[in-house]
């Protein structure tokens, strides 16, 4: 037993400190890095939101100048969507949890995974770089042409934005592909596709959505850069271009993007509701099919965001109907969760509170979502504060609250220490009430006629009060986040030991130590049900032969039934992903600043690094058992 563990440790633990920092390919390391980086971006986006809220707290004040205000809301949206929400659900929670939940030792392509993180980090720095050059993007996270074109936004600011997104797109696409292969081929023996945890389903569906949606954004951003740097006129109507082309391309990506953030969060919700009801989930198949159909439908509703652009009524009504149909699978999810809570015995702990906050908040966001899919009503409220309210109910309620729940739920696994329950309750109630106060009144100010993206408004009794309440709510959220940080620090210093499975959960990640060893599982489990830890996987029962343990090896299993078919040799620590990402980053900087020598040097380095990466290994990398 200890002998096998020693061999596993020798095979899977990085040889020295530098290789464990720069060269790490461990999915848990990469996942944690994603989570920490994304949470830093969350704080940045939150601070930008706070500045905007202070500016709007009273009418006619000058806390920031109008031009700064434009930069701030652009920064808030861009960072929150691209650098926080998407990376934390996929790269963060996905990376950390998927291999653990599948009962394997790593992702299918560990070096590609490291590469994906470095690209994400560098593209975040690149988008930030715009601050130091004094030209910050200021046309909103949607960057509508022609305002974002060369004529109305000269300077480098929009190039930072456009190239930064193309660059970031590489990272997200690569992770999407990596998840799909991992989920189809690396599940523990016996984990047939109908026994896969619901969170993994969320990541799988999202990964497919990423692969189909992102090309549209990358294309849009590339065409914009051709217009800006190359003098083409894709989006310039005075020279035969079309400004609506930008909106179509952007929203073909943008609408699925909402669900790319949301579907993994739905997976977190299903997981936590199952654990804290201590019963098997009701309607597993319906929950899976709901996620799949939401992802499909989300590609058919992009015109949602373009109702007021003067498209013909027949088209509008088609997209309105398609948009409404999405609420059917969402409704089924809600009722499956309620039925699970109903059937089970409730464990009142902080993660569940955040999930209940999610149910309450997302329900309101969903109902206003149906309202804005009704075309004539959308004419009235689109581009007003009503939409700001709706999207924050959906994204804060539907993504941030499940993320907090997920952090409270899985931090004991990640650090081995429990989070404090009473601080957790304070965190929840302040955040929950803060969200309602900050965003609910925006529905009303929108109905009263207050547009979006304005830095001030005319003083009227109703507007003044509502805006002040919103700012107070924003401060409550700030305090809640500070409490989270205090709670985390306290848990790291004096937290109670978590043990392997503090919540008595049913999925495989809780079979590992907290925090898990570098190799995750001492013995690879054999799975016979959806909640293996609740049924047969107690102590000695049903464990596959351990892999030899001299080299890094994992089981490859069949896509549907998860029958073992091969042992795959996995790569160890490598500096190549870091170097590859760095060369691409320098290449982008070279293009952006127009420095030819840097561009050429970076391109040459990039070729060399990828050459080394793809150089054929001297020996066969697959061994059949």
């Amino acid at each position, binding site marked *: 037993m200890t002998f096998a563990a020693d061999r596993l440790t020798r095979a899977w633990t990085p040889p020295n400190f530098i290789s464990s920092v720069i060269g790490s390919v461990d999915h848990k390391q990469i996942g944690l890095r994603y989570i920490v980086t994304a949470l830093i971006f969350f704080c940045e986006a939150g601070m930008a939101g706070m500045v905007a809220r202070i500016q709007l707290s009273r009418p006619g004040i000058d806390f920031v100048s*109008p031009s700064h205000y*434009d930069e701030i809301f652009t920064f808030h949206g861009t960072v929150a969507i691209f650098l926080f929400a998407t990376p934390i659900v996929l790269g963060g929670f996905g990376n950390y949890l998927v291999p653990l939940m599948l009962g394997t030792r790593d992702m299918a392509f560990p070096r590609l995974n490291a590469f994906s993180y470095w690209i994400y980090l560098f593209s975040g720095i690149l988008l930030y770089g715009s601050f130091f050059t004094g030209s910050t993007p200021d*046309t909103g996270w949607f960057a*509508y042409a022609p*305002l974002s074109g060369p004529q109305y936004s000269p300077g480098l600011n929009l190039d930072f934005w456009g190239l930064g997104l193309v660059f970031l797109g590489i990272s997200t696409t690569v992770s999407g592909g990596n998840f799909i292969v991992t989920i189809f081929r690396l599940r523990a023996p016996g984990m047939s596709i109908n026994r896969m945890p619901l969170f993994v389903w969320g990541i799988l569906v999202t990964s497919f959505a990423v692969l189909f949606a992102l090309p549209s954004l990358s294309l849009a951003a590339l065409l914009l850069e051709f217009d800006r740097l190359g003098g083409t006129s894709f989006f310039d109507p*005075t020279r035969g271009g079309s400004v609506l082309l930008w909106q179509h391309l952007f929203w073909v990506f943008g609408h699925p993007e909402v669900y790319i953030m949301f579907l993994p969060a739905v997976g977190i919700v299903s997981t936590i509701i199952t654990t804290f009801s201590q019963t098997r989930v*009701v309607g597993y198949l*319906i929950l899976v099919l709901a996620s799949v159909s939401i992802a499909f439908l989300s590609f058919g509703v992009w015109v949602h965001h373009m109702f*007021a*652009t*003067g498209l013909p009524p027949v088209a*509008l*009504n088609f997209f309105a109907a398609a948009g409404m149909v999405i*609420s*059917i699978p969402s*409704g*089924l999810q809600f*009722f*499956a969760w*309620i*039925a699970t*809570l*109903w*059937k089970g*015995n*409730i464990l*009142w702990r902080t993660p569940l509170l955040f999930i*209940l906050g999610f*149910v*309450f908040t997302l*329900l*309101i966001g969903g*109902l*206003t979502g*149906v309202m804005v899919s*009704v*075309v*004539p*009503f959308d*004419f*009235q409220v*689109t*581009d*007003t504060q009503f939409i700001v309210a709706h999207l924050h109910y959906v994204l804060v309620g539907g993504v941030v609250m499940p993320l907090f729940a997920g952090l409270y739920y899985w931090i004991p696994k990640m650090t081995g220490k429990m989070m404090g329950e009473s601080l957790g309750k304070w965190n929840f*109630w302040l955040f*929950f*009430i803060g969200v*309602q106060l900050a965003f*609910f009144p925006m*529905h*009303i100010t929108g*109905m009263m*006629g207050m*547009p*979006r*993206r*304005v*830095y001030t408004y005319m003083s009227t009794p*109703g507007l003044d009060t*509502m805006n002040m309440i919103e700012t107070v709510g924003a401060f409550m959220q700030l305090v809640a986040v500070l409490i989270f940080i205090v709670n985390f620090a306290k848990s790291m210093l004096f937290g109670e030991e978590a043990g392997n499975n503090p919540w008595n959960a049913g999925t495989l990640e809780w079979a590992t130590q907290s925090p898990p060893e570098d190799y995750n599982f001492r013995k690879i489990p054999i799975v016979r049900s959806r909640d293996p830890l609740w049924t047969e996987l107690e102590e000695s029962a049903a464990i596959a032969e351990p892999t030899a343990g001299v080299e890094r090896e994992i089981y490859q299993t069949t896509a549907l039934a998860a029958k073992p078919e091969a042992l795959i040799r996995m790569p160890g620590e490598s500096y190549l992903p870091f170097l590859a990402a760095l060369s691409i980053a320098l290449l982008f900087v070279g293009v952006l600043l127009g420095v030819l020598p840097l561009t050429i040097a970076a391109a040459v380095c990039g070729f060399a690094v990828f050459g080394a990466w793809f150089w054929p290994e001297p020996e066969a990398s697959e061994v059949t058992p």
Partner: protein
Amino acid sequence: MTKRPILRIATIVLVVLATGLATACTGEYNPKSNQANDIASLWWVMLILACAVFAVVIGLAAWALFRPRKGPSTMDKPRSQFAFLLVGGAVIPLLILAAVFGYSLDVMGHTGSDQSGQLVVHVTGHQWWYDVEYPQQSVSATNVMYLPAHRQVKIILNSADVIHSFWVPELNGKTDIIPGVTNHLYITDPQPGTYIGHCAEFCGIGHTAMQIKVVVESQDAFDRWVANQGGKSQ
């Protein structure tokens, strides 16, 4: 532990709903034309339906959480689970959505159409002002639009630079003003009054200040204004 959360949740639900309804009822949203009236009635119907759905779902969730846990629950049987999901998650939402969609098609049906004797106004959006022209009267104005009450107006929208939007909350929903595209909207039977319209599509640093004043007055007053501007009356 069981008593306190339910009270808190109930209090929050009530406070949120009450403030929302109260403010909506104070009449800050005042429809003053046929199109705006249609949108307003659609809004009230949807608001009532949404409150009902909200109350039912939150009520079910509260019951699921706080129900007395003695003996077996009705939700243990797969058949009752299936019925619960099917009826609550699919059948009832489908009926409500079909009704709302049908109603919205009806409203879409009377947004207005070209008719004889309607007033035509050309609006051109600029960074950051509105140019308002009356081709039938050969007069023009800047950032202000005079309209005769109780007639139908067709507003034709073009942009000189970036995307803007034309939106007077009391008179109709908004229509974007897009370079390279000609859009239009109708306002039928506007009531007399002075209304402020905001540009609603972010158009650069002057977006916040980009507003248009719409003055709806009697036909006589409108004709006098046209004559004062040196235009021809119809």
